[in-house]
C-alpha cells in the first residue's frame, strides 16, 4: 500500500550524490535499484517507498558530513537501524537519503563496576546482554525482536519488552545518548551521572523516531541478574477472566517481573512452532514471573498462585527449572513469527489501555473480528495494558489489506476512548500518523511540530512520520471524526 507522504522536497539527486561521494567511499553509497530494493520497507511490510540513495557510514565524522551535506542541499534523511520497526518509522522517503547505522556495531566499553555499557547504535539488543553476562549483568529492556533490533532503534522507539513492568522501558535504562543534529553538530543527551544540566532532553530523544537527531552512541545501564526467576503459567477458560486476573495481581501489591497474556488463537499458532508445552484447551494463558532471591521468589510465587486461583485460573503450572522457564517464554517471544506462519500477512496493533479495561477491549476485538471477517490472535504485555492484536489477512486478496487496516484503526481508536493510547512501544511512524488526530488536539499537534522545529527547523529528519501535518489532521477528523465503532462512552480526556 502506498503511504502518501505529504511532506515533499525538491531534490537535486546529482548534486547530493556528488557531495556525498566526496565524503564517503563508494561502497558506502548505494544508488542502483536492486541495491535500494531491500531498504524499501521495515517490519511493517505493507508500506513501501524507494529512497533516492542509501548511505552506510562507519564513523561519526562521516555521519556529520552526510548530515551537513543533506542540510545544505535540503535533502531529507531517514535514519535506519535493523528495520525491525513495526510502524514504518524506517521506511524511506522518496526524495531522501536513508542513513543506515548498520556499520556502527561496536560495543565500545563495558564497565561492570559502574554497571554501564557504551555501545554504538547498530549493536543488537541481545548482544549487550550476552557480553554483560560474564559480569552477572544484563540489559533489562528485552523486546521480542532482541536478536535483531538495534540499540539505536530501541532508543528511537523507546522500546519495551516483556520485563518492563518491573524494569522499565528503554527511557529508564539509558544514561546518555550521543548524536548529531541535522546541521551535523555533535550533541549529548543525559550524562554519566543520573541527570544532566538543563531540560531533560534524554526523555525526548527516547521515542523520537529519528525525527530529532541521529544517534551514534548510547550509554546503557546494566542490571544485576536476579539469582532466580520462575514463571507461573495460569490457564483460564475465559479470556475476560484472564484480563481481570491481571488487575487482581497488581491490586494485591505484586509487581511481577513479567506479566504477559496470550489467547487461544495465539497459543495454537505458537505451539506447533515452538513446542512450549502450552495447554491448548485453555481460552487464555497468563505468564506471571517472579524474580529475586530464592526465598523471595518462593514467597512471591505462593502469593501469585493464590491470587490467580482466586481469579478463576483453571490450572497453574510453575516452571521447575531454567529450561522450563525459557521454554515457556520462548513461546511468548515467538508469537509474532508463529502467527506469521499461519497467515500470508499479519498486522500488529500496539494500543495501550488501563488494565481494568482489558476484558472490555477483548470483547470489542472479538466483535470487530466478525465485522471485518478477519482472524485476530491476541498477545498482550498485559501487566502494562499494552495490547498486540495480530490481525491476519492476505494482501493478495483484493480488499483484505484495507479491511485489516480499518480493523486496526478501530482497535486503536477504542484504545484512546478507553483512556489509553494508539501506541505503547512500536511508535507512530507512517502507520499511525493519521491516528494521532484521534488522540491529540490541533493545538497539541502544533506543539509537537514546534518541538520538532527546535531541533530541526527545516524538517529534514524523517519527514512526514510521527506527527501528522495539520492538513492530515483535518482530513482525519472529517472522514473518521464521527465514526463510533463501539457504544463505550468517552471518558473525560485527561
Amino acid at each position: 500500500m502506498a503511504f502518501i507522504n505529504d511532506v515533499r522536497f525538491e531534490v537535486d539527486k546529482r548534486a547530493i550524490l556528488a557531495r556525498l561521494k566526496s565524503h564517503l567511499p563508494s561502497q558506502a553509497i548505494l544508488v542502483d535499484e536492486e541495491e535500494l530494493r531491500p531498504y524499501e520497507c521495515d517490519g511493517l511490510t505493507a508500506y513501501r517507498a524507494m529512497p533516492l540513495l542509501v548511505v552506510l557510514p562507519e564513523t561519526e565524522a562521516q555521519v556529520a558530513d552526510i548530515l551537513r551535506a543533506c542540510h545544505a542541499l535540503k535533502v531529507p534523511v531517514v535514519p535506519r537501524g535493523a528495520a525491525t520497526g513495526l510502524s514504518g518509522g524506517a521506511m524511506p522517503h522518496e526524495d531522501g537519503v536513508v542513513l543506515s547505522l548498520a556499520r556502527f556495531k561496536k560495543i565500545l566499553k563495558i564497565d561492570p563496576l559502574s554497571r554501564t555499557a557504551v555501545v554504538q547504535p547498530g549493536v543488537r539488543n541481545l548482544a549487550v546482554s550476552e557480553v554483560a553476562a560474564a559480569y552477572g549483568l544484563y540489559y533489562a529492556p528485552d523486546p521480542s525482536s532482541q536478536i535483531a533490533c538495534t540499540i539505536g532503534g530501541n532508543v528511537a522507539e523507546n522500546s519495551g519488552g516483556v520485563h518492563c513492568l518491573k524494569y522499565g522501558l528503554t527511557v529508564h535504562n539509558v544514561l546518555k545518548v550521543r548524536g548529531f543534529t541535522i546541521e551535523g553538530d555533535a550533541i549529548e543527551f543525559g550524562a554519566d551521572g543520573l541527570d544532566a544540566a538543563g531540560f531533560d532532553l534524554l526523555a525526548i530523544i527516547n521515542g523520537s523516531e529519528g525525527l530529532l537527531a541521529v544517534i551514534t552512541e548510547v550509554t546503557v545501564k546494566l542490571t544485576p541478574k536476579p539469582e532466580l526467576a520462575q514463571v507461573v503459567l495460569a490457564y483460564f477458560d475465559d479470556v475476560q477472566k484472564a484480563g481481570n486476573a491481571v488487575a487482581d495481581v497488581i491490586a494485591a501489591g505484586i509487581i511481577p517481573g513479567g506479566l504477559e497474556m496470550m489467547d487461544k488463537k495465539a497459543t495454537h499458532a505458537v505451539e506447533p512452532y515452538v513446542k512450549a508445552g502450552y495447554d491448548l484447551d485453555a481460552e487464555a494463558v497468563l505468564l506471571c514471573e517472579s524474580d529475586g532471591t530464592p526465598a523471595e521468589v518462593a514467597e512471591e510465587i505462593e502469593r501469585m498462585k493464590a491470587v490467580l486461583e482466586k481469579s478463576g485460573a483453571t490450572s497453574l503450572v510453575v516452571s521447575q527449572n531454567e529450561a522450563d522457564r525459557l521454554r515457556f517464554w520462548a513461546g511468548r517471544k515467538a508469537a509474532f513469527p508463529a502467527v506469521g506462519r499461519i497467515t500470508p500477512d499479519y498486522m500488529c496493533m500496539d494500543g495501550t489501555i488501563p488494565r481494568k479495561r482489558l476484558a472490555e477491549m477483548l470483547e470489542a476485538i472479538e466483535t470487530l473480528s466478525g465485522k471485518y471477517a478477519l482472524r485476530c490472535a491476541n498477545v498482550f504485555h498485559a501487566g502494562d495494558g499494552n495490547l498486540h492484536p495480530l490481525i491476519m489477512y492476505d494482501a493478495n486478496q483484493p480488499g483484505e489489506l484495507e479491511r485489516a487496516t480499518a480493523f486496526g484503526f478501530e482497535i486503536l481508536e477504542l484504545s484512546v476512548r478507553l483512556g489509553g493510547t494508539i501506541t505503547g512501544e512500536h511508535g507512530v511512524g507512517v502507520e499511525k500518523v493519521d491516528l494521532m488526530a484521534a488522540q491529540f488536539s490541533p493545538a497539541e499537534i502544533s506543539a509537537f511540530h514546534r518541538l520538532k522545529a527546535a531541533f530541526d527547523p527545516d524538517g529534514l529528519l524523517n519527514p512526514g512520520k510521527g506527527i501528522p501535518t495539520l492538513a492530515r489532521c483535518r482530513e482525519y477528523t472529517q472522514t473518521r471524526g464521527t465514526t463510533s465503532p463501539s457504544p463505550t462512552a468517552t471518558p473525560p480526556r485527561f
Partner: protein
Amino acid sequence: MDATLNEWAGRVRNAAETGKTLRIRGGGTKDFYGQPTTGEVLDTTPYRGIASYEPTELVVVARAGTPLAELEAALREKGQCLPFDPPYFGDGATLGGMVAAGLSGPRRAAVGAVRDYVLGVKMIDGNGDLLSFGGQVMKNVAGYDVPRLMAGSLGTLGLLAEVALKVLPLPVAERTLRFAMSEAEAIQKLNAWGGQPLPIAASTWQAEALTVRLMGARAAVESAHATLGGEIVPDANSFWQGVREQTSTFFAGDEPLWRLSVASVTSPLGLSGPTLIEWGGAQRWVRGDQGAEQVRTCASRAGGHAVLFRGSQSLKASAGTFQPLSPVLARIHRNLKQAFDPKGVFNVGRMYPDF
C-alpha cells in the same frame, strides 16, 4: 474548561500580549532553588485535589496545587507511595512544584527519578492553550514525551495544571545498616554491591560512616543483611527524613551547598569542605565556598554537572545556579523555550539567564 484553568489561560494570554512575565508558585518551598525570577505571582494552590486514583492501575492523577502531603497520605492509605522520595523543603510543597523542580530523594538511584514516574501532564503553554500530553498508561510513545520533559524544567516551559503519576506498592520490609568506612572505600563498596542483586534502596556516606537502607520482600532484606553485615540503625526513619529534607546537621548553616551529579564510580572529588554522598555514589553534596569554576570543572571531569543548590544571592548571581550548557544544547534550549513559551511569559531566567 475548569474555571480556574480558564482564568489562568486568560492571565497567560494577557501577559503574552502585554509583554508581562509570570512567576509560577505553589507552596513556595522551592523558592530558593534556581535563579531569582520576576513577574506577577501565579499561585497554583487554589487548583488542588486528587482527580482520580486507582490503586489497581498504579496511577494517580492530581491537580498541580495539591499539597504533596495530601497526595502521599492518600497513597499510603492504599499501601502505595511515590517511591522516589521527593523532598518537600517545607510544609506547603505541591505536586506541581515537585514535578517542575524535578528533585528526587534518597531512593532515586534504586527506583528512578520524578521524571520516571510522570505519565501525563495537562498544562497551559505560553500561548494560553490548554494542552494534554501523555496519559494514564504505563507505556505510551504517541508523540514526543513532553510529560517527562516538564520534570525539572522549573516552570520555564509551561504552567502545569494536572499531573498523572505512576505509583508503586510500599515496600513490605526494610532495614537500615551502618558501616564505619572511608569515603573511597564506601564508593568502591556501593558500586560493587550495585552489581549484585541486593535490595539496596538508598545509601548515604558522611563523616566516615556509610548508611544503607534495604527495602523489599522480607526474605530479600533478611538475606541481604546476612550478606552485608553492618550494624542496625535504630531510628532509621528520622535519619532518612533528615537526608531527604536536608534537616540533618550536614545541611545546617549558611555555607554554600553544591550538588554534584557524577558517574557513580568517581573517586573522592578532592574538593575542600565536607562531603555527603548519596545515590550509590552518583550524587555528592559539598559544603563551602569552593570557587564555582573549580566545582564545575570537577563535575564535568566526572561525567556530570554541578548545581549551586543553596547559596547567597550574590554567589548565585556571579556563579549561576546551573552548569553552563554547550553551545549546541544552549541553542536547543532557547528554541524549546520559544516553542512552548514564545513570548517569554513563564519563570524567565529561573533556569538560565537567557530564557
